[in-house]
């Protein structure tokens, strides 16, 4: 019943304008990056061709950074658009009461949480996966060059690769690394959205815009707290979520993700227990 309700909520959220807008904004950015790459590397010699995964939008394509920069700035806002805003609207209009009356308040709260996780994961994962597919089809898979011009035999290279989040996986296969990194990006997006949804489950917002503040403030606080010194592990969210990011990392910081998820689960349990008419 819970899974069925969550899937029904997900189907409904995916049809909302917010999900469609987010999906197409990401898809447009990805396609712009792909078209730029095709024009830039058309006819390039294999010896000078950049590794196709290193020119992905999420991989900070160094020659086409404008949209990547826009994405980093609007991501904290965008992450709540597909599923959190419809949830906040549902609470505002009182539609949530009807659903809670039909399936039970606790079940409704958890089905909503699951739907927020699933919707956000799908919307944020599919466009970057499409780009991986397009790059695999269009560029030679044997290409090895680095967009920063650092050769794989350069003494600095191992140090750079060691700083990647899943560096062991990258050394096995850059393609598998890109796919896993993209799934990780989707998973983190889903958790950030669930964190915002936790506040929607507990509080009632007069304006839907305030429902996105938890994730927005949290993500931007990590950017503000990040220092320029590259010898100190980065704390900005994009140091961990984007691909091929060579900033020194402290994997212990990733514990924040289960903590955010736990907050979301506790909030859903609290929201489910509370009198939904109050």
């Amino acid at each position, binding site marked *: 019943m819970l899974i069925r309700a969550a899937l029904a909520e997900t189907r409904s959220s995916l049809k909302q304008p917010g999900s469609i807008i987010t999906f197409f904004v990401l898809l447009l950015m990805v396609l712009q990056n792909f078209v730029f790459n095709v024009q830039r590397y058309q006819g390039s010699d294999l010896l000078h061709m950049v590794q196709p995964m290193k020119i992905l939008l999420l991989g900070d394509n160094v020659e086409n*950074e*404008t949209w990547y*920069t826009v994405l980093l*700035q*609007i991501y904290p806002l965008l992450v709540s658009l597909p599923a959190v805003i419809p949830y906040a*609207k549902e609470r*505002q209009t009182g539609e949530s009461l009807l659903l809670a009356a039909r399936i039970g308040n606790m079940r409704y709260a958890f089905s909503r949480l699951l739907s927020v996780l699933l919707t956000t994961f799908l919307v944020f994962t599919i466009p970057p996966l499409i780009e991986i597919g397009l790059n695999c089809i269009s560029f030679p898979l044997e290409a090895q060059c680095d967009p920063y011009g650092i050769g794989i035999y350069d003494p600095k290279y191992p140090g750079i690769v060691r700083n990647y989040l899943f560096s062991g996986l990258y050394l096995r296969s850059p393609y598998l690394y890109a796919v896993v990194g993209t799934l990780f990006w989707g998973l983190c997006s889903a958790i950030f959205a669930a964190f915002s949804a936790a506040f929607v489950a507990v509080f009632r917002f007069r304006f839907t*815009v305030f429902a996105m503040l938890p994730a927005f403030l949290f993500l*931007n606080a990590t950017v503000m707290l990040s220092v320029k010194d590259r010898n100190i592990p980065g704390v900005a969210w994009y140091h961990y979520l984007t691909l091929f990011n060579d900033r020194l990392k402290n994997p212990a910081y990733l514990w924040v993700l289960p903590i955010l998820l736990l907050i979301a689960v506790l909030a859903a349990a609290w929201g489910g227990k509370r009198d939904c008419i109050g």
Partner: protein
Amino acid sequence: MYRLRYDLLYTLLFGILSGVLAAVLYVNPMCDTISLPEMVLQLSGSRGIFALYGAAPSELMAVFSRFLPSILFEIYAGTVMYRSFCTASVYVFTRNPDRAKWYRREVCRVLLLSVLFTAISLAITVLLAAVRYAVVLNVPGAILLLYHFVLYAIWTFTVTIFINVLSIWLGSYNATLAATALQALCIALLGLVRLSAQPVLAVLARVNPVSHLILGWFHSAIPAVEEAIPPVGDVEFWGFSFPVSLLVVSVYCLAVVLSGRQLVLHHDILSGNAELDGV
């Protein structure tokens, strides 16, 4: 009157928060002494004594995070005018049959809040910086501080009115997202500064309103102020100066206020609540 008092209280809180964040995160002298011009330039994108001249995303994210406190204020003040359209709008406008007059009053209210927010934020930044470091006050610094205050107050006011007006049409979340995305795009376009030799990009850089908020790219007819701004690459040829930037930012402001007036005058208040997708 009660509503205004409530808004003023929130503006004061946002101003203090913004000032504290700016003073702690962005005022960074090389030693324990900082001159006022250096401090003001750091508030508008400079790192140390070096003006913004990088296209790296991390560099531009640092510019975005400087705008963050004002974005938070804009999210709050973006509901000041809009809330009258959201709840009991029929009641509000039957008591205010002259919508143009109502709009003028609301615009003045937003202007007052924007000016206060910028003034409080700057005052707290300067005060806190003076507590933490030895701040060398001088006339060029005071002039740059005035430039900063005027340009940022107008820009904050413009974006706030933009969000209010767009919210009537799209709802608060979509309007905030659109305004933030536009600002993000303008900030990302600052990265094209290195390519300014290309005519199209040079024009794009000149019409980009956020370019006119980077005081490190300015020239001044006042020799002392000109001396206080360190030179920076190709941007010297763009001819940014306070009067030009004031004109550009004011044109954007006027365009937003006038088009907002048209939207408010012609909006059908019975057509539904944009906040709830017309429910």
